């Protein structure tokens, strides 16, 4: 094992633990995190495994395969976060609208 491997595995475990703790009561995202953690540990511990899969799917190197997977995952996460942001914005809009409607001033009050 090279010196960087235990460092990377420790970081992966720590990040996964934080993600698992923050995803309270959400089973599917937690399972995704666990699967990603397992894959990460396998790829770090055995880099040849990534090369082997890359050859099988027609990508030259394991590093390239991981880069493609990383790009796809990042794009997916970006879209999911954007979607959640829009959902949050809608809730904020409804809240503010509710407040505006409740405190509306009539012509009599303004005049």
């Amino acid at each position: 094992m090279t010196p960087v491997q235990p460092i990377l595995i420790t970081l992966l475990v720590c990040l996964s633990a934080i993600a698992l703790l923050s995803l309270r009561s959400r089973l599917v995202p937690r399972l995704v995190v666990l699967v990603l953690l397992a894959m990460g540990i396998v790829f770090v511990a055995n880099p040849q495994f990534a090369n082997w899969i890359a050859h099988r799917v027609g990508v030259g190197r394991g590093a390239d395969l991981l880069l493609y997977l990383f790009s796809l995952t990042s794009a997916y996460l970006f879209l999911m976060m954007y979607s959640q942001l829009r959902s949050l914005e809608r809730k904020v809009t409804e809240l503010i609208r509710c407040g505006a409607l409740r405190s509306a001033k009539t012509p009599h009050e303004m005049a």
Partner: protein
Amino acid sequence: MHPDRVFAIIPAYQEAGALPAAVRDVLTLGYSVVVVDDGSRDGTEEALRGMPIHYLRHATNLGQGAALQTGMTYALSQGAEIMVHFDADGQHPASRIAELIRPILEGECDVVLGSRFLRREDRELVPWKKRIALRIGIVVSGILSGVWLSDTHNGFRALSRKAASRIRLREDGFAHATEILGCLRTAGLRYREVPVAIRYTAYSIRKGQPVSNGLNVVVDLLLSRVLR
């Protein structure tokens, strides 16, 4: 119909300077006015004191689409029969409201949209840079909404009570103009365009949206299509 059943909805953000004159123009004609102050911090409410208007205030700035939806929801609750979207910077001519709402009063349609491109004299009032951007906007809106009009980002429009009840704007920003067109189709509303002249002043051009903002609108619409 008594004119006070016609509600002019004026979204306003930092328009304390030009807004009172625009409101006065509408009030003179006997229409009801709903000002939706979209989180201004320039004393908009004080500038409107003494005017017999409905005043609503967003606690923070949300955008023109959100302000229009707030105004329409409120106007519906007040028994409005027709709602007119009207700009705060004075570029919409209040004298044209009667022309704008006539097709609705006569039962010809549910929504009337003002267009700057139906008459040559109106078209010539539009600055050339804006004209190009608007032309692109027409094509993009047509593709995204399936409704092809001569002018799509003209904020001067009138809606019947039925139309306003069926339209629910989800786009808080300027993308609402294209969203409304999509609603026309999905809600099965009858619509038509009428010619309007927009008064472009140095003030309204300065306060208006930069042409480059059109790209943001397109991105917003595309993403909201993918991620509803």
